[in-house]
């Protein structure tokens, strides 16, 4: 569990459009790395390239290497389905499966992978919901639909669903942007707990959030309209927010632009 990620000279394209230019960065295991930057700078695109989710969009492709503990997930013989099983993802908007109960949502990954053992599914369900700090709130209504929960609970349900398949890495694409401050706090606390077991990469527009939860921060920016996004700098979060080495980073985090 908890593997390291090395992104090596990754270029990302949507058809002919060069979306992200040559990103190289490393994510140590059992840590939280935050991607920050203005809208359209490619941070979500980079995140989605880490579990080969990017290529789901027609015409999208990735050049370069993404190494998971040294193994290139873009190697020719690698099955993207396997990659996604190893690297889980939580999305911007909570997206529980609307036809399924809370329990079925949590164990959906295992169920769809063919696990039928009821006892094992129940165990995983409880463990994952506890892991997502949701168990106490929903334990009495596991058979109720997931869509009936509040936004914050739905997002924790999605986190429970993601960790139920025991991935090595957890990617989070602005997981709190649709949530109120209290639910956001709950998710942030959860992220801090989850990093004991998982490698976490989180995209956020909220710089305080990046400062609160992450160990390492990467700042992405656009050189200009129509230009590809690029990685400006990556460093310890403390350093980025106190003494960044690039002027652009300082301007962004101090609110002078973006």
């Amino acid at each position, binding site marked *: 569990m908890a593997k390291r990620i090395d992104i090596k000279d990754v270029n990302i394209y949507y058809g002919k459009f060069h979306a992200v230019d040559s990103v190289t960065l490393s994510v140590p295991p059992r840590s939280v790395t935050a991607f920050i930057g203005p809208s359209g700078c490619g941070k979500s695109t980079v995140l989605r390239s880490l*579990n080969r*989710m990017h290529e*789901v969009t*027609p015409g999208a492709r990735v050049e370069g290497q993404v190494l998971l503990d040294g193994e290139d997930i873009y190697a020719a013989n690698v099955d993207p*389905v*396997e*990659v*996604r*099983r*190893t690297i*889980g*993802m939580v*999305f911007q*908007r909570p*997206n*529980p*499966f*609307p*036809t*399924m*109960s809370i329990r079925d949502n949590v164990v*959906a*990954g295992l169920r*769809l*992978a063919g696990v039928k053992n009821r006892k094992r599914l129940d165990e995983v369900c409880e463990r994952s919901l506890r892991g997502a700090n949701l168990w106490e709130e929903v334990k009495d209504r596991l058979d*109720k*639909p997931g*869509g*009936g929960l509040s936004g914050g609970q739905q997002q924790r349900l*999605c986190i429970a*669903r*993601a960790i139920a*398949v025991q991935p090595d890495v957890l990617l989070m694409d602005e997981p709190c942007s649709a949530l109120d401050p209290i639910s956001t706090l709950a998710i942030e606390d959860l992220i801090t707990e989850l990093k004991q077991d998982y490698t976490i990469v989180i995209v956020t527009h909220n710089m305080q959030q990046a400062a609160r939860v992450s160990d390492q921060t990467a700042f992405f920016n656009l050189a200009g309209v129509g230009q590809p996004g690029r990685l400006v700098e990556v460093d310890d979060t403390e350093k980025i927010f106190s003494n960044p080495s690039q002027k652009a980073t300082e301007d962004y985090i101090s609110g002078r632009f973006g």
Partner: protein
Amino acid sequence: MTTATTDLHRPATGPAFQGIGAGRKIKNAVATTLVALAFLVAVVPLVWVLWSVVQKGLQPILSADWWTHSLYGLRPYDDRGGAYHAIYGTVVQALSTALLSVPVGVMVGVYLVEYGAGTRLARFTTFMVDILTGVPSIVSGLFVYALWISILGFGRSGFAVSLSLLLLMIPVVIRTTEEMLRIVPNELREASYALGVPKWKTIVKIVLPTAMSGIVTGVMLGLARVMGETAPALIVGAYASSINLNVFDGNQANLPLLMNDQFANPETAGFNRTWGAAMSLVLIIMLFNLLATVISRLSAIKK
């Protein structure tokens, strides 16, 4: 120019709000009346039709013979017999139409939305489906007659009727599936992929169940529509007054054919049989719709 400037500098006088003017009141009254009238124009004939069917058709179908006997060997004025042969034909022909059209239509819809989106083949298919939707039922009957009966040499049968209904039904199923799949949010597909679920399984286990209730409703509406089709049945089916249990061979009655046949019968018995058949058809379609509601309730998105 100068006056305009002074106007702007003059303090506003008079009340800020004025009552609703007479003009607006009149317009409102006229529009409300028109909308109400349009509603009546639409609903009155509908209720009238239903009332006529019930009034004239209820009595004949109340006898047990109606559901258990055919019209075999009965003379036009014999006030006996039933529509068992035609009811059986309608249900069996509708079921075989559904059995063939639903898998084909749903799969085409899945292809168009999940796999082919934007490709030339998909655009061509959508275009053809649009054209097929507009094909008159008698044309599909003629086509099946030419292909199935004249060229391939099969005889007239209930199945031939099903084939021509199939041509009318498939575009409906494709369209419904396509539209229902398109409104399944992409986030659900991505959520499933992110769990390491392959694409085909995502479609079968996540996307289709989410769209299920809409697809079922569309299929049932389409089925109700083709069950009442008479033109293809006249061409490729042909009426029989006796029961024919074999859908693949020989003349097989259905309710529209029975109505068409008995409409030409001037006796009271003919009148009763025609309206009884109409009533039975409405009942069967209602039953199918009820079934559809139950199925879509079972598979509905839970809130």
